[in-house]
């Protein structure tokens, strides 16, 4: 199970990478493995506001559909348009080409409440 050290995580299996005042968000390697083949990712339009731990989109895999939760509050500044034609990027590169949205954070202090890589690994351990 790939859990990059430099990222923060939610219990709902999203990852977040902070780049200045913005955050890049996707789902974890564990999540893509559990979902199976991803065939559609529904994302908000740039400009939309998202609130921490509220849904911002959905992810359709062949067998199931799952909500996406925003790790932080803010405004969506970009979405990954490559997922429209190639949703399998979520399976192949969950931490790179499979990223989903970029959020301009309205309250960076929210980051303090997110899981570290260690916390997330423990959370996964509790799952298994």
């Amino acid at each position: 199970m790939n859990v990059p050290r430099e990222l923060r995580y939610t219990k709902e299996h999203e990852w977040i990478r902070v780049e200045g005042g913005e955050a890049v968000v996707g789902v974890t390697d564990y999540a893509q493995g559990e979902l199976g083949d991803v065939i559609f990712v529904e994302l908000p339009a740039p400009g939309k506001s998202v609130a921490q731990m509220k849904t911002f989109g959905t992810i359709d895999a062949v067998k199931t559909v799952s909500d996406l939760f925003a790790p932080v509050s803010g405004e969506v500044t970009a979405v990954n348009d490559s997922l429209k034609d190639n949703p399998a990027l979520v399976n192949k590169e969950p931490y790179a080409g499979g990223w989903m949205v970029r959020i301009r954070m309205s309250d960076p202090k929210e980051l303090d409440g997110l899981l570290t890589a260690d916390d997330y690994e423990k959370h996964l351990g509790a799952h298994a």
Partner: protein
Amino acid sequence: MLETASALKRTPFHPRHIASGGKMVPFAGHEMPIQYEGIVAEHRTVRTGVGVFDVSHMGEIRLTGPGAAAAANHLVTGEVDAIPDGKVVYTPMCLESGGIVDDLLVYALGQDRLLVVNAANFDKDLAYVRANVPAGVTVVDENASTAQLAIQGPKAEEVVAKLYGDRARALAFYEGYETGSGEDWTLVSRTGYTGEDGFEIYVRASKALALWDRVFEAGAPHGIKPIGLGARDTLRLEMGYCLYGNDIDETTNPLEAGLGWTVRLDKKEFLGHDAIRRVKEAGVTRRLQGLLLEENRIARPGADVAWNGAAAGRVTSGSMGITLGKPVAMAYLAPEASKPGTRVEVVTRGQASPAVVASRPMHREGSVKSPKPRRSE
């Protein structure tokens, strides 16, 4: 419906699933592989090459004795009495109400009739069969002693012919034969539920692992791969084949399910005959049809279907049509909204997705050699 690991049955192929990287899940009381390398790749393997499914969870019930053929004919809507030796018939078994108890295969094997039923329905079916056959016909539960592999895809014939020779190659679709006895018993039939040419091989459970190994050795030059339940579902769905528990159950009758072609109302009688005849005379009140969705949002079972702004039906199965390249679904639709080509909307998570009604099968390019299941009304 929580199924605990300890209560789950394992098929004789279980060690091979683990060795092949199968992701095991609870299914109909069994621990079964949902996928190995991934549903999309496995689906494509079966459409273009050859794949192997463990279908040992399916249940086998054999009727023996001089009256076995007639007894089976009373149980199911299809004709399974006056048929040639080796013929296989896909047919529902119904309640007197016309509701479907199960959909099954009936094999004509000499005087015997072998019923192959869905795993989740096995106990119910066995009790129903026992309650509805006359004295003198013996009902044999062969479920635990039987293992079964489905070898499916356009290259299946090459693999099976290597193992079973010209006799297997010469089989027409929905024909089969038995050989051997005791632990050497084998049943080979040209059957399947994927829309591709294919075979199903039944052996005694003690011979299962040897069969798996021989099949994979014979199939290696053709790129044979194991296929999980996930792709089994997407393959059958593109063909519009019914899945019991989703598309058909005891509250649906064969005519509205588009299975009129399996109902022989010209038979003198069978369980459900009168009720189904009345449905035929009055006309169905809903029809199970295919839906092709125009956006990449999957229609899940239970989603409402709207037509002209009003409720017109409900989705029973839905997933990605991996070969079709678009989401595909099956839904019971009001007759006025059920004509192929009708534009409807599937309401998924509060959003309306445009869809077009399609006759079944939705995928028409398969290598399957039979007359395809078609609407009879």
